[in-house]
């Protein structure tokens, strides 16, 4: 079933367009535009910065030694949204095109089909993550070359761990998308709600509650997915900019984040599997 799912994904232009857009944005937003702003700062842009610190000091974030932190901090949620859409498309389109009934009238059982799809989704997410890191590594090297800085990457094991962490984060988003499209049996509603959650719901709720102060909000927040993607990203350290004090350590550690994200992945997989197994296909 995995082979079949991969066969479909490889031939589906939408998936590759989505990944390409993510990579282009990674270069444009993550490096090109940022570098332009830091190199040619608009008048008055240094206001609010500590004395002696300029926007140019932030360019350190664009150099290879920081590309892992930069990639994780920038794309944990935004890149995750792309993974969510991939997850939605891979499952929701089956309902939209009616191919779900074609699939389920072949030889294999429904759950075998589902796990084949999840395996193929994992491959797509892995390709997405590796490509993102490769593009960011290339872009950071180019920035360093242009600025005449030495190209010095983090240790290989750090890069490997970061790729695994990003895979888990993106994987969570992808399976979230898959589950949403299974629940709603369509893509549009799943993408809408997924985006709303990723960009508004959790951030907004805890942003507002944070205004109340106190530790209780953080205690609750630590059980929510986006908070845990942040803890995991932040576990790779923060970028040190001259004149700016280092950021506080994450509320929960990487182990907590990994366990929580695994639990979310398992829960969404279980929900999807239950619905897949028990629901009537009337489309």
């Amino acid at each position, binding site marked *: 079933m995995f082979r079949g799912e991969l066969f479909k994904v490889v031939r589906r232009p939408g998936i590759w367009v989505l990944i390409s857009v993510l990579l282009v944005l990674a270069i444009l937003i993550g490096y090109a535009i940022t570098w332009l702003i830091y190199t040619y700062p608009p008048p008055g842009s240094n206001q609010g910065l500590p004395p002696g610190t300029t926007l140019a000091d932030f360019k350190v974030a664009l150099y290879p030694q920081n590309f892992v932190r930069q990639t994780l901090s920038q794309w944990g949620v935004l890149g995750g949204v792309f993974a969510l859409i991939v997850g939605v498309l891979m499952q929701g389109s089956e309902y939209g095109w009616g191919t779900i009934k074609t699939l389920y*009238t*072949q030889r294999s059982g429904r759950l075998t089909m589902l796990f084949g799809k999840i395996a193929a989704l994992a491959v797509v997410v892995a390709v997405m993550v590796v490509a993102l890191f490769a593009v960011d590594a290339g872009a950071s090297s180019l920035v360093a070359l242009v600025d005449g800085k030495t190209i010095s990457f983090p240790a290989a094991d750090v890069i490997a761990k970061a790729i695994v962490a990003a895979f888990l984060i993106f994987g969570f988003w992808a399976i979230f998308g898959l589950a949403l499209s299974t629940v709603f049996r369509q893509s549009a509603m799943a993408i809408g709600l997924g985006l709303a959650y990723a960009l508004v719901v959790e951030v907004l709720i805890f942003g507002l509650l944070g205004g109340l102060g106190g530790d209780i909000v953080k205690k609750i927040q630590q059980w929510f997915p986006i908070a845990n993607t942040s803890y995991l990203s932040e576990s790779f350290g923060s970028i040190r900019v001259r004149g700016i004090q280092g950021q506080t350590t994450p509320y929960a550690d990487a182990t907590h984040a990994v366990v929580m994200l695994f639990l979310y992945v398992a829960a969404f997989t279980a929900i999807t599997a239950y619905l897949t197994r028990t629901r009537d296909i009337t489309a």
Partner: protein
Amino acid sequence: MITAVVEAPIRRPLLPGVGGEKVVETRGLTKRYGTGIVAVDSLDLSVYRGEVYGFLGPNGAGKTTTLRMLLGLIRPSAGIATVAGAAPGSPASLSKVGAIVETPAFYPYMTGYDNLRLLATYCGVKRSRVDETLAEVELTPRAHHKFSTYSLGMKQRLGIAGALLKEPELLILDEPTNGLDPQGMADVRNLIIELGKGDRTVLISSHLLGEVELMCTRVGVIRKGKIVAEGTVDQLRGAATLAVRGTPEETAKAVLIDEAGAENVTALGDASFTVRVDLQRTAEINKHLVDAGVAVTELRADERSLEDIFMELTGTEGGL
């Protein structure tokens, strides 16, 4: 409501008929939705190896729901079913069943060939079957065009090719000519007739009477989720009668009773009669009427159309 369950026909020697091998069997199959709607109500259905069985009924009668239950797409609320010797939807059953449910659904961004290759991967059949089935449905010239560019007829043929990939014992086709133009309908119909010629069993649902009449060896009529009649088209139609009109009426009646027996003659008024009699005796009866001085103004075989039966059984108008 008329319920007529008659013996299965003998379409080929040693093949179907009561006591033959049942490829599809349901007992008390029921689908009840939470809204209280009973889509299929205690359905008992037997389809025998080698027959082309037409599942006939108006829209909303429960045909598609039944077929979906036979394929494991919908779980029954009650009752049991066996399809190709196994539980519906189980890998053992599905490996022997090819199906199209309503419109054939494929991936629009892939070619017809790639869509079938994908199905071949899922079914575990050799890739060479893809070329064979494409040739069988005469789609080879368009095999490498995207599915989204196919006409409705081509999509339907690709659906049939997909259903044939596994070389199934049983083909389940839900309204296979739906939406096709007359030429497309004829093409698909001829294809199904060809497919039904071997040992393969074909179960077709349709609301088109003419279609069923042309393709099927046995027909089950479904209404409000229940089978209301079952048999060959001829059996459903019943014996043909002779329509006679002649004057003087009393003389004509006496002659007809003498020829066919009082229980087989029905006076319709206006010197018209229907006579249940062997139609091969038509000329002989005509001679006796004329010899008795009856002026015969009408004498014809009166065969009920399948449409009449359909309307009678389902309380609706036929699809054609």
